[in-house]
């Protein structure tokens, strides 16, 4: 009885439900999904979640190491997490700056504190932060950079830019890929040959040198926001080819199917056949390709900004954060500057897991 109900449930399920059931079985894909949702939530609400604003400089705290969070006070009693005040000190032997805790100071980490003011999504002004400590205590989870800016806050703001570049870049490549791949596959003939040759030529170029060449052509006096949009456009100009190939391949194989013929006999026009019959039958494949394309975009942006020809300050991305960590001696002295690497790897892994899981889930012949 129980078994037949299960079977019936399976038969009644919609395609979407089936895909979701298959997807849920994939443990790595679920982890990836949680990670992505987490990263996007973090980057959406970064003004509120970050204890400091990304540009607040703590002049007396340059290259401060991550703040130690303590649970036990001097008498060894368990307290709610607190930090000590930290003072800059110069090691007279090595001439290096180090930070020493001031004994006896006690600044508990509090929730919902008032701190640096910000404009949330450029819409509302506010100064509420999820957590923080009272001045003069300072809480730098990941330490600070050359100018004494909190690296944790900057990582959150940086992920926002890097993730958004991934989204916009892929959206633009999707548009290009759908239109050009669609025309190529549906019209065929010399248009098809032309588009295919173009794709082949673009794919011949080693992408990073090509991106570098295009990005370096931007005049240095451009506004940072303009650079941001140009970088997005450049990334998608090179990145649309995979999508276009996929769309074309699918269209060509589907064009000859009976249901298309039936639709044509029923008097459907080209537009209707494409959008009503052909596109829905491979939406899932498009989603998979897009999911796998986003990490490429994120990596490309990181690489370009790391080299110094991508995004420019004041825009902060994971790549511009890593630019600070180019020098071996800097990294050796201040290893926490490498923390943004973890964000990049987490993003890339998460999208790859989700993409792989989706690919298995949408393919009805996979087991």
């Amino acid at each position, binding site marked *: 009885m129980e078994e037949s109900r299960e079977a019936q449930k399976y038969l009644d399920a919609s395609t979407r439900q089936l895909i979701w059931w298959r997807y849920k079985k994939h443990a790595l894909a679920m982890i990836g999904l949680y990670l992505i949702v987490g990263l996007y939530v973090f980057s959406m609400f970064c003004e509120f979640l970050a204890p400091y604003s990304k540009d607040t400089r703590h002049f007396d705290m340059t290259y401060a190491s991550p703040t130690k969070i303590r649970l036990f006070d001097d008498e060894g009693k368990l307290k709610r997490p607190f930090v000590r005040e930290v003072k800059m000190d110069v090691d007279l032997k090595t001439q290096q700056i180090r930070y020493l805790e001031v004994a006896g100071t006690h600044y508990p980490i509090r929730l919902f504190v008032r701190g640096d003011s910000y404009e949330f999504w450029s819409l509302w002004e506010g100064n509420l932060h999820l957590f923080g400590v009272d001045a003069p205590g300072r809480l730098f989870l990941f330490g600070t950079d050359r100018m004494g800016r909190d690296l944790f806050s900057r990582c959150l703001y940086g992920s926002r830019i890097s993730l958004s570049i991934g989204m916009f870049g892929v959206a633009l490549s999707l548009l290009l890929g759908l239109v050009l791949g669609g025309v190529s596959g549906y019209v065929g003939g010399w248009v098809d040959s032309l588009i295919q040759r173009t794709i082949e030529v673009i794919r011949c170029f*080693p992408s*990073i040198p090509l991106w570098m060449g295009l990005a370096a052509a931007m005049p240095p006096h451009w506004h940072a926001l303009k650079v941001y949009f140009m970088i997005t456009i450049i990334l998608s100009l090179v990145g649309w080819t995979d999508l276009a190939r996929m769309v074309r391949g699918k269209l060509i194989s589907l064009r000859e199917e009976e249901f298309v013929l039936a639709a044509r006999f029923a008097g459907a026009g080209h537009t209707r056949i494409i959008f009503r019959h052909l596109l829905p039958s491979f939406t899932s494949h498009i989603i998979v390709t897009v999911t796998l394309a986003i990490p490429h975009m994120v990596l490309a942006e990181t690489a370009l900004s790391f080299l110094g*020809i991508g995004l420019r300050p004041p825009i902060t991305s994971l790549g511009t954060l*890593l630019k600070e*960590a*180019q020098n*071996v001696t800097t*990294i050796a002295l201040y290893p926490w500057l490498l923390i943004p690497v973890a964000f990049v*790897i987490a993003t890339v892994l998460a999208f790859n897991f989700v993409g792989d899981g989706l690919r298995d889930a949408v393919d009805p012949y996979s087991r």
Partner: protein
Amino acid sequence: MLTYIIRRIFIMIPTLIAISVISFIIIELPPGDFLTAYTAELSMSGEAIDQVELESLKKRFGLDEPLYMRYLLWAWNFLHGDFGHSFEWNKPVRDLIGERLAMSVTISTCTLLFTWLVSVPIGIYSAVRQYSWVDHFLTFIGFIGLATPNFLFALVLLWVSYAYLGMNVGGLFSPEYSEAPWDLAKVLDLLKHLWIPVVIVGTAHTAKFIRIIRGNLLDELKKPYVTTARAKGLPETRLILKYPVRVAINPLVSTIGWTLPELISGIAITAVVLNLPTTGPLLLRALMSQDMQLAGTFIMFLSALTVLGTLISDILLAWVDPRIRYEAREVK
């Protein structure tokens, strides 16, 4: 076979022309021509501007001509080995790129060989012992390798070796050899440094290749001919190596085409991090200082190299896989 190769070379020509057009566009992209930048730089440093030299340069690069004439002139000079003039170094581009391109090619070739040497045995092992803990472990390493971009891997490695092993892994030569003429000792020194970029750039591709070989071999192992051979009593090792493996590594040859651009990309950026004397750092510097003739030549050469690599891989594939040869014959 010969007709196939000739046909394939002819197909290459339009691609090369298209690549040259794009390279030329990159040269022309920055606002103003390079002579304005050059004269501005000269007058900034207080040097006198030689009007005669200026005129001759203008004529040499056809700066007064329309765009398409400039392209034709550039392409014509390019074909005759004149790649323009680097204004940052004040040298012909030709003198600057030779050794660096050779170094890039060396590293790419070594990396390709490395990825094959590592991935083929591992891929075979993973497929034959599917779901063993070694297989799981390798899959895990593969995922990490895929997700870590080359230059970040280089950065982390640089830091670990500097902070914990106390050595600097950057560069391709020890200081005493970097300016020395080529001899055996220098080559040995090069080999000592070469493995670092090779491993860094190779890791991601090794992971990809292992997945390809494993997948293909798993498909092959299920086929009836394997069962037949086993039933006949063929020893397992010989059976696997002789038939299914041969089929399963075929796609690797065809992947050279899209692997090469990625390898060259990866090496370009890894070289910047590790400070290798290859094309990457010089290209970056040229782009930053808008020394576009140098940059454009690099981009042109790197892309042409990939086209050449694709050609070689197609020929290899036709040689390995008779089906492609016959198809080519039929088309003719």
